[in-house]
C-alpha cells in the first residue's frame, strides 16, 4: 500500500452532485428568461442610491444609481454567462485547430508553435489582457476575443496532446491508406475520438473564463455601462461599501456561486473519470 492510495477524495460519490447542477441550471434559466423574471428594467431608476435590502419593491436594495439591484443581477447573468461561453467557444476553436495542426505537422512547425505557446502560457493572464485592451480598446467583442485567445493557449496543450495520442492509432493509418485528406483525418476521424477530454477541458476552463472576464470588467476595462455585468457591477457599487451597502458584494457572490458550482462539478467529473491530461493541468 502506498501513501498516495490513502488519500481520500473529497467528493468521491458516484452520483452526480445535485446542488451544483441545480445552481447552474437556475442561472441558465435566469439568463434566458431575465426580461420576464426581473421586476424592473435593468437601467431604470427606482429609488435612492444604495437603498437597503428588502425595502419597498426592491428585494436586494438599489445600486449607486438607484436602480434595482436584483433586476441588474438577473440581467447581469446574461452578459456574464454569454460572454464567458462565447470566449470559451472561441478558445476551443483556436486551441483545437492549432493544437491539431501542430500534432499533425510535427517537426519544426510543431516545435515553433509549441515554444511560442509555452512562452505565452507562462505569462500572467491579467497582464496579457491589459495589453490587449489597451491596444484594441474595450468592447464586448474585444473582451471575448482577448479572453478567448488567452484561454486557447490552455486548450492548445490539451488538444495537441490528445491529437498526438490519437494520430498514433491504427484507425488514422487506415484513413491515410484510404486516401483521406488531412482536414478529414483531423476533424472527422481524430476530433470525434478526442472529444471527451476536450469537453472536460471546456468545463475546467469555464470557471477560469468567468473569473478572468469579471476581473477585467471589474477593472472598468471590459463590459461598459449601462449594460449589467457582475464584475462591472461590483466595481460601480464599490463606493457604497463605506456606508455598509451590500450592493458590491451581491454580484461578486453571484460570480462565486457560478464558479464554485462549476468547480465542484468538474472536480466530481475528474475524480470519476480520472482523466490524466485534465487533472494534470488543473493540478
Amino acid at each position, binding site marked *: 500500500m502506498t*501513501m498516495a492510495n490513502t*488519500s481520500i477524495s473529497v467528493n468521491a460519490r458516484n452520483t452526480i452532485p445535485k446542488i451544483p447542477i441545480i445552481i447552474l441550471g437556475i442561472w441558465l434559466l435566469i439568463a434566458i428568461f431575465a426580461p420576464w423574471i426581473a421586476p424592473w428594467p435593468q437601467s431604470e431608476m427606482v429609488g435612492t442610491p444604495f437603498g437597503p435590502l428588502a425595502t419597498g419593491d426592491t428585494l436586494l436594495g438599489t445600486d449607486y444609481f438607484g436602480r434595482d439591484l436584483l433586476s441588474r443581477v438577473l440581467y447581469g447573468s446574461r452578459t456574464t454567462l454569454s460572454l464567458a461561453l462565447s470566449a470559451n467557444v472561441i478558445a476551443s476553436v483556436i486551441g483545437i485547430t492549432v493544437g491539431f495542426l501542430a500534432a499533425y505537422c510535427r517537426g519544426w512547425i510543431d516545435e515553433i508553435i509549441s515554444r511560442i505557446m509555452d512562452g505565452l502560457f507562462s505569462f*500572467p493572464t491579467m497582464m496579457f489582457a*491589459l495589453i490587449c485592451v*489597451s491596444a484594441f480598446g474595450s468592447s464586448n467583442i474585444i473582451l471575448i476575443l482577448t479572453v478567448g485567445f488567452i484561454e486557447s493557449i490552455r486548450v492548445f496543450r490539451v488538444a495537441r496532446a490528445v491529437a498526438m495520442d490519437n494520430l498514433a492509432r491504427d484507425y488514422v493509418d487506415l484513413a491515410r491508406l484510404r486516401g483521406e485528406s488531412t482536414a478529414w483525418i483531423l476533424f472527422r476521424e481524430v476530433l470525434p475520438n478526442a472529444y471527451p477530454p476536450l469537453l472536460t477541458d471546456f468545463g475546467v476552463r469555464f470557471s477560469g473564463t468567468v473569473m478572468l472576464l469579471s476581473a477585467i470588467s471589474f*477593472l472598468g476595462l471590459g463590459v461598459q455601462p449601462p449594460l449589467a455585468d457582475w464584475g462591472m457591477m461590483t466595481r460601480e457599487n464599490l463606493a457604497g461599501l463605506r456606508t*455598509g451597502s451590500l450592493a458590491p*458584494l451581491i454580484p461578486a457572490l453571484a460570480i462565486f456561486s457560478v464558479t464554485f458550482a462549476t468547480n465542484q462539478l468538474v472536480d466530481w467529473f475528474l475524480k470519476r473519470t480520472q482523466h490524466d491530461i485534465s487533472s494534470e493541468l488543473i493540478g
Partner: protein
Amino acid sequence: MTILKLILRRLVFGIGTLIFVTLLVFVGTELLPGDVAEIALGQDATPETLEAMRNELGLNQPAYIRYFSWLGHAVQGDLGESFASGRKVSTLLATRLPATFVLGGLTALIALPLAVGLGLYSAARAGALPDRIITNLSLVTASGPEFMFATLLILLFSVTLGWLPGTSYVSSQASFVDQLRVMVLPVTTLVIAVFAPTARMTRSSVLNLMGSPFVEMALLKGVPRWRILLRHALPNAIGPISNVIGISLGYLVSGVVVVEVVFSYPGMAKLMVDSVAVRDLPLVQGCALIFASAYVGLNLLTDLIAIAGNPRLRSGG
C-alpha cells in the same frame, strides 16, 4: 546537457518572452486608429503640427526602425513620455514601483511559506481532517474572484468593526504603524488568492512523489513518515515545488492588479490600469515591460532553484 547550458537556455527563453511582450505592445500601438501624434495632440492637431510632431517622434520612419529605436531607448532606461501628463515614464514608474514591490513582496513572504508548508503537511497526512479542511478551503478560495474577498474583508474589518482602513491613502508623514495598518487588508486579500492554488499544487506534486517506488521502499524499511517526507520526498520535491511557486507568481501578478484597484493602492498596477483606461500607451508599455521583467526574472530564479535541487542536473551529468 551541462548546467551552464541549461541556465543559458532559460535565460534566452526569458529574454525571448520579454521581446515578445514588447512586440505585442508595439503592434498594439500600430493598430490604433490614428498615430501617436494624433492622439498626443488631440484637439490641437493641424496638418502642420502633426507633421512636425511626426518628424520629431520619427513616426515617418518604417515601423521596424521605430521598434528598434524604442527598444534601444528602453534598454537604456528611457521609456518615453506619458501622453496624459507629459512626464517621463521612468520617473512615474519610479514613484510607483516601491509600493507594488512592498505589496507583492509581503504577500509572497507570507503566502508562499504558508501554502507550501500546509501543502506538504496535507500531503503527508492525506485524508486526515486537516488535509480535508485545507483541500475544501482551497476549493472555496480558488472559486472566488479577488475582488469578492476584498469587498468581504472591507465590509467586515473596515466598515463593520472599524479596525482597519479600507483604502490605502496614507500621507508620507504617517507613522510606520499607520503605514503597516494600511497594508493589512490588501496583503490578506492577496494571500487568500495565492494560497489556494499554491497549497493545492504543492500537495498534488508531493503526493505524486509519495506514490513512487523509492518512497514505498523507505516505507517498507520502516522509516517513519515524517522522515520519509523530509529526507526522501522533500529533496525530490524541490523541483516541482519551485515550478509551483513560479505559477503562483503569475497568480500574484494578476491579483496585485485587482487588489491595487479595490484599495486604491498607489502602486504600479493601479497606474497601469489607469493608463490602459485612457490609452496612455508609453505608460502602458513601461508598466508591461517592468511587470514582464519582474515575472521573467522571478521565474528564472525558481528555475535555478529547481536545477540546484536536482542532483542529476547539479552534477552536470
